């Protein structure tokens, strides 16, 4: 019984971490039709931002929840202004340019930080479920994911920015029709997506550690989650994370982590084959 409870927490954790690492990419993809292959590096930079901040005596909570999103959000705005804006409407070129950015950021962090960066360890200790112990931090990650998703829901549902976002998701020309300044909307959107990635990277840093090449481990998974989910930011991310997270974690527990990974990737291929527009392209089409 306690094993089932533990497994349930782990499945929830897998879903939450998938949703966290994907939601920034989903916003950028859903609203701008830009596939950001430097997404993994945004997560990595979030981790570094948190580490550097904590080593300067800032509280770990502020470092993770405030400093990291602000720093990476600003980097996102800079990237949008210097690279992405020249490539709107050229989806494949954007992918290639952001792939270049990804390599560049890996190289730059290696040059600056080297390979030995003292990490941050997970705060909050652990708790007992029957015969098992697991970390409280796992629950914290689940909570952060829930709060982030709820906040995005509220933002999209009830604010002017959200109205523009919904418009843009349904019709790319809508933003212009609403009389908003598209360059600014794009810069803000890209910055917001980057900031969420920074937050996710920082929150996961105590669990998975931070090193320059960690983005590679993230990018394929979040990419697949977003494409699998389809255009709707929230329902897409949540449904795809739930599907892939469950498959991955259960397969890992029953067999090995490799098989868990392969099962996730195979599920993704089958899903895209069956539903080329993603889960939300077929179901919850009117979702957010």
């Amino acid at each position, binding site marked *: 019984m306690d*094993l089932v409870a*533990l*497994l349930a927490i*782990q499945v929830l*954790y*897998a879903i939450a971490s998938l949703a966290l690492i994907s939601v920034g990419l989903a916003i950028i993809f859903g609203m701008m039709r830009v596939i950001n292959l430097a997404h993994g590096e945004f997560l990595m930079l979030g981790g570094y931002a948190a580490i550097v901040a904590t080593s300067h005596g800032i509280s770990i909570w502020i470092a993770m929840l405030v400093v990291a999103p602000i720093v990476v959000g600003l980097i996102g705005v800079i990237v949008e202004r210097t690279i992405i804006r020249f490539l709107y409407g050229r989806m494949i070129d954007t992918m290639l340019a952001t792939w270049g950015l990804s390599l560049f950021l890996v*190289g730059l962090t*290696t040059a600056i930080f*080297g*390979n*030995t*960066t*003292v*990490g*941050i*360890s*997970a705060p909050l*200790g*652990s*708790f007992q479920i029957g*015969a*098992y*112990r*697991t*970390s409280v*931090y*796992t629950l914290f990650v689940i909570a952060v994911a829930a709060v982030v998703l709820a906040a995005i829901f509220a933002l999209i549902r009830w604010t002017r920015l959200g109205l523009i976002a919904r418009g843009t998701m349904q019709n790319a020309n809508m933003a212009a029709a609403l009389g908003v300044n598209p360059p600014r909307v794009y810069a803000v959107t890209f910055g917001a997506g980057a900031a969420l990635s920074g937050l996710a990277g920082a929150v996961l840093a*105590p*669990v*998975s*550690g931070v*090193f320059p*090449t*960690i983005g*590679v*481990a993230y990018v394929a998974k979040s990419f697949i989650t977003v494409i699998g989910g389809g255009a709707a930011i929230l329902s897409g991310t949540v449904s795809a994370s739930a599907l892939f997270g469950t498959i991955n*974690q259960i397969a*890992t*527990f029953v067999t*090995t*982590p*490799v098989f*868990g*990974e392969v099962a996730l990737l195979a599920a993704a291929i089958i899903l895209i084959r069956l539903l080329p527009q993603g889960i939300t392209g077929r179901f919850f089409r009117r979702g957010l």
Partner: protein
Amino acid sequence: MRVNRRTFMQGTAATAAAGMFSSSAVAEEPINVASIHDLSGGLDIYGKPMVDAMTLAIEEANAAGGLLGRPLKLINYDTQSNMQLYTQFAQQAALKDKVAVVHGGITSASREVIRPVLDKFKTLYFYNTQYEGGVCDRNQFDTGVTPAQTVEKLVPYAMKKWGKKVYVIAADYNYGQITSQWVKKYVIENGGEVPAIDFFPLDVTNFGPTISKIQAAKPDFVWSALVGGAHISFYRQWAAAGMRKSIPMASTTFAVGNEHIVLSPDECNGMLICYNYFQDLKNPVNEKFVASFLKRFGADYPNITELAMGTYQGFRLWAEAVKKAGSIDRMKVIEALETGISIDAPSGKVTIDPPTHHCVLDVHIAEVADKKLKVLEDFAQQKPADTAAVCDLIKNPTDNQQYVIKI
């Protein structure tokens, strides 16, 4: 520490001779020495200290007048964690730079790429990393420790301290696979049991389900043969789940890179490890070495690793053999090395074992304590018994393969 009188005499003589002719040494054609290591990409944690140690060894040698009156030139290749470049650079080192010796390779995979190339082009090769054992090739010398030298010591030590039920987790490649078999063998020989061995590819970062499985198995301690940056997250998640205090851990891979610096003391204190070299070894040779290393690369240098020392000792052994042979000719140097040459190294006395081309050396068990490695017990002059069981290059000088040792 026993110092071999003969080598000592030779050493001083050579130094004196080199000193006398040091002015002419500069004018001589330099001897090229190649270093082929990953300095970027996923494996640079290991490569960087190795190249630093190599640099220091060569600078010291040049300051002492070079070798055979000729200065040494380090040709440093970065393979960028890319196997194709290992082939290319090994070819370049042999054919273009015409180096006297190649030191390099980190993973067993990279060694198996370099080895045939250097065999083909008749260039002497030193592999200075601890590895799974079993390579038998007259052209190659291995200065790293193998499982029979470390696992054999650490298993009974940890079992005596913690108990007989050992859960093994290992990186999913040659080294992890073979080392975990050695662990199992020694645990059973010491009357214990191994409920499970789990393997993880090198890029796995999610260990949640594994940690649950380990808890379900209730071992007395966990043996880790995890490797590389991604696997560090295991220790994090283990500590976060509150396991560090209830189930202890032993390893022959932890702290080979920089794990104990990256992790906080709370996450890894108390872990037992076993290697040939620790920066804190108390002996005059080491104290002098550490001082000059830190002077050269900065007092804040994170850790002089096992692999760095392997490289340093590898170079010194080769240099000693060149002096003895009076030549850099490959066969003459091999023959000199096969006399069982010894050096008095920072880790203690290191001697080439002629039949296996591996080393007889000291090993030490240590405990991780607040980002330092505290030496607990020493074991003098351990032989490479695993490779010796399958390899005798004196009897079969043409043998050339990596044996999978029957365990």
